[in-house]
């Protein structure tokens, strides 16, 4: 196991460390997924190295072999270096061919202004590069790791995928996140218990301009907290001079019961003047709630 895989394993999500057993329904979905991919012959996958796309890429290799699979990583300042390392580790371990492309959403003022549909501009840039890159290699089917649970979220990026005819077989076949984790665990994919890891721009409240400097601050702060031993879901939300830390409930209780000074020092060291600990802890889409995009 590569060193960076070991690092990922060290941040297991406490909630999913004891994952549910794989169900008959989940196995049936996986069989359907393999058949769906085989019908297409060759597939290119938008590959971040997260739980969903890692599973999808591994199944694709299983279904059509490495010669029929291309995992494409879109790299930009909003893509954490640790996530890139996890993606490469999975690809190396499972023999997944990888293509890396630089994306330039940061140069798009519509993206940088950080509106509530920011993800649309990011995904438009991503797919406008990935789809032609796949086509140039004779691959007509481009897929992503959107799952059935994602469909209820605020996800403006999905519209960009639809415009570019990107398919989401996990969602289409009804895979839940829990099923993907369980099936990943059964396949020995080290991401099975990895916390969700959306792009770094998701740490900035809507309307706060996305800049490489702010994203780097967030990335440094989260990396410093991981180094302290923070496990499970973690977000450092950027509120200008103040960083607001969201921890998984178990970790929040643990740190409050101990001493929060190391959290403060670690995040201050990443370049924030002030540090606060969110008392509700981690919430997926927390800034959607703060921005009034979804209900509290």
């Amino acid at each position, binding site marked *: 196991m590569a060193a960076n895989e070991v690092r990922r394993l060290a941040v297991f999500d406490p909630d999913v460390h004891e994952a549910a057993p794989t169900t008959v329904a989940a196995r049936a979905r996986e069989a359907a997924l393999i058949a769906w991919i085989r019908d297409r012959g060759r597939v290119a996958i938008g590959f971040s190295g997260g739980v969903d796309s890692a599973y999808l890429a591994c199944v694709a290799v299983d279904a059509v072999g490495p010669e029929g699979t291309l995992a494409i990583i879109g790299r930009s300042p909003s893509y954490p270096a640790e996530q890139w390392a996890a993606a490469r580790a999975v690809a190396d371990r499972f023999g997944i061919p990888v293509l890396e492309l630089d994306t330039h959403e940061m140069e798009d003022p519509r993206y940088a202004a950080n509106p509530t549909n920011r993800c649309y501009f990011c995904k438009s840039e991503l797919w406008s590069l990935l789809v032609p890159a796949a086509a140039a290699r004779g691959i007509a089917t481009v897929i992503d790791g959107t799952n059935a649970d994602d469909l209820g979220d605020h996800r403006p990026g999905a519209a960009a995928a639809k415009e570019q005819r990107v398919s989401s077989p996990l969602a289409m076949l009804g895979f839940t996140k829990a099923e993907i984790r369980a099936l990943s665990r059964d396949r020995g994919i080290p991401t099975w218990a990895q916390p969700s890891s959306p792009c770094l721009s998701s740490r900035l*409240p809507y309307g706060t301009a996305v800049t490489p400097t702010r994203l780097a601050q967030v990335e440094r702060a989260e990396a410093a907290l991981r180094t302290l031993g923070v496990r499970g879901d973690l977000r450092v939300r950027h509120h200008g001079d103040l960083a*607001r830390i969201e921890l998984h409930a178990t970790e929040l209780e643990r740190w*409050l019961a101990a001493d929060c000074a190391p959290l*403060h020092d670690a995040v201050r060291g990443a370049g924030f003047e*002030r540090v*606060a600990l969110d008392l509700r802890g981690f919430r997926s889409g927390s800034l959607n709630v703060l921005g009034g995009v979804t209900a509290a």
Partner: protein
Amino acid sequence: MSAQPFRDALGALAVDADVEIRDRLAILRPRGAVDARRIAAERGRITALAAEHGFTHVALELGAVAPEGDATLPRD
């Protein structure tokens, strides 16, 4: 949203802190040394109070002590 009613409500829990508002985020700045275990014990009630006062988020500022001198809040 106003800080004072929320501060008063926190005071009733013997949580002695200034409240800074940023949109729907309330930032608690402890007055005097913070007892994190007390905050932990009251966490559910604090977040519920915050919601009652219109805040979607409430956070405890670390390493900060608000200046003393305002005697409107109870201290223990």
